[in-house]
């Protein structure tokens, strides 16, 4: 990240897009602070806050003890009293340590007190499989958040979305949970700071198609795109829908897409049962019932913890080969 002040980057990593979003926001708003485990001197376990300590100093970039519940709770307290914290949980799995503060406090503080106050903060966390990190460091827990009214939930796939979703979350007054897939940090793409792409609460059609809608978010959008390329060779025209935020959820784009293609595959790294894909499947059934030519397929991680062995982990989540296979069967 040699040049911080450009408006357009031909190729920037997801990680650097996040760093730029934090940097640019902190320059504009001195109420923003960053706090979390190893965010300062270390620069964040996945490098999303690298060098920010040098630029903003220890008053604004704060290393915390390994106290996940208090990280969230103290951030909320700071948000209630005039600051705008960006808290980082090193792994989304640590929601387990801090879920009282997330679900019972942060999500409800505005409602319980009759709308007296907002808690304008972001809780960033990193999730997903792909590094053999094991059952306690590989989960996709977006369902926990989506099932908790009061929390906005952003889960970007591209660097441009990561930048603009983070920037947006720092301007609105709701608490936002921001989930980053661990294998996206090194992926790269365009960043146009002047093109927010009407992003918040609006799904993005990554590829237009007429035969089948694959509805996904985060890293699985990449799998959908690759499968769509393969399927195109076999004359199956797939539409890839990237949800980008799960709350607000862009129901209209999902419904519109499936009404057009009449077939849907919902793709996610969360577990099969009672997860985000189940919700999307319900929406499709509720609103596209008469349009559907085939049952909606939920293609997800297995209903098991994540295994460490790479050969198992690879098949624990959806594979591109099987997305292709299931899509072909749906389009028969």
């Amino acid at each position, binding site marked *: 990240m040699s040049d911080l002040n450009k408006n357009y980057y031909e190729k920037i990593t997801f990680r650097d897009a996040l760093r730029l979003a934090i940097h640019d926001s902190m320059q504009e708003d001195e109420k923003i602070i960053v706090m979390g485990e190893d965010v300062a001197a270390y620069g964040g376990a996945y490098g999303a806050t690298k060098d920010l300590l040098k630029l903003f100093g220890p008053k604004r970039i704060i290393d*915390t003890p390994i106290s996940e519940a208090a990280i969230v*709770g103290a951030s909320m307290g*700071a948000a209630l*009293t005039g*600051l705008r914290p960006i808290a980082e949980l090193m792994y989304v799995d640590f929601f387990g340590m801090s879920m009282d503060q997330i679900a019972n*406090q942060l999500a409800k503080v505005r409602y*319980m007190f009759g709308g007296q106050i907002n808690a304008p903060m972001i809780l960033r966390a990193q999730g997903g499989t792909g590094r053999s990190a094991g059952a306690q460091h590989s989960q996709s827990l977006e369902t926990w958040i989506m099932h908790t009214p009061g929390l906005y939930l952003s889960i970007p796939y591209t660097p441009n979305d990561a930048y603009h979703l983070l920037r947006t979350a720092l301007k609105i007054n709701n608490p936002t949970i921001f989930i980053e897939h661990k294998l996206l940090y090194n992926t790269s793409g365009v960043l146009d700071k002047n093109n927010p792409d009407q992003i918040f609460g609006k799904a993005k059609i990554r590829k237009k198609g007429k035969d089948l809608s694959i509805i996904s978010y985060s890293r699985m959008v990449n799998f959908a795109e690759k499968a769509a390329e393969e399927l195109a060779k076999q004359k199956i025209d797939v539409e890839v829908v990237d949800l980008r935020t799960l709350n607000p959820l862009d129901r209209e784009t999902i419904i519109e897409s499936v009404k057009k293609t009449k077939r849907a595959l919902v793709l996610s790294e969360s577990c099969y049962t009672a997860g985000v894909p189940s919700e999307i499947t319900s929406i499709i059934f509720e609103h596209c019932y008469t349009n559907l030519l085939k049952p909606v397929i939920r293609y997800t991680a297995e209903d098991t913890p994540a295994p460490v062995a790479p050969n198992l982990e690879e098949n624990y989540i959806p594979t591109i080969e099987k997305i292709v296979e299931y899509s072909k069967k749906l389009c028969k």
Partner: protein
Amino acid sequence: MTQSNTLLPNLYTTMKRIRTFEERVGELFIKGETAGTMLHLSIGEELGPTCLGAAMQKQDTFTTHHRGHGIFIARGGDPKKMMAEIAGKKDGYCKGKGGSMHIADMKLGHLGANAIVGGGIPTVVGAGLSSKYLEEDKVSVAFFGDGAMQQGILYESMNMASLWKLPVVFCCINNQYGMGTKIDNAAGLKDFSKRAASFGLNTLHIDDLDIENAYVKSKEIIDKARKFEPGFIEVECYRFFGHARMDKSPYRSEEEEIKMRKSDPISYASNQMLKNKIMNEDEIKKINEKISIEMDEAMDFAINSPLNNQKEIFTDVYDESEPLPISVEERINKILS
């Protein structure tokens, strides 16, 4: 009256207001006018909230636990709006959406009552962080019960406050019982100050009924916190009645209750005033009558406050600039149309 002659009457008045308020909450419940039964009264526990409330400054902030009516009153809460909130009515502090256990007034620095044991403790760490960052000279005090002494979040929070030298005070109102479990059956080490001291906090243990002394000592701890030396205060007391309205206290003997209720901070203060000729019986009676009228009015206000509009189910989940959540009815009608 000299300052020392006004201090005790003031503290007495606050304690008596708390007790009378709580008694009226009990009456409101019997009349069937409260929203539910989750009512945790602090009768017998008035000393701690009163002396800390007086020792805090106007700009200071605080969080409370589920038994927090007294602290709110000691910090200037309006009994009418409190009672209306407890009744689940429109004129309550939180439009009746919070109730007894989730009452708050951000303008008074009340950052929220909490129904999760220990849940509101880290909030004051963040408030202390803001105060220091924004140079606002605000101390933030977390009030909680002895139950929270056994919650991990307290120790995460104490450590952070100590590490970052925050203007924060942790105050444990130890009423001897976590619901029905006596503290002897819940705490391996009952000397809580030792636990707090091990985090580098200034500590204070109040275990008698001398509220003037408790006020002076509490103020020392709060004043030190204002200079970025966080502190811990334990106030020992006795919960005169059950955990909540439906609790008949089967876990403790009547003898114990009779004995412990003799340690009444309000009677003690009253006797001190008489003994030291600060006030005579008539003067005390007048204070009590005035309070009684005030709290009767609060109860009437709550009973007469209107109910909420049904739309209030959906408001206040998200910032007011954001769309309201879609109702289930609207969703179903859309599907069936």
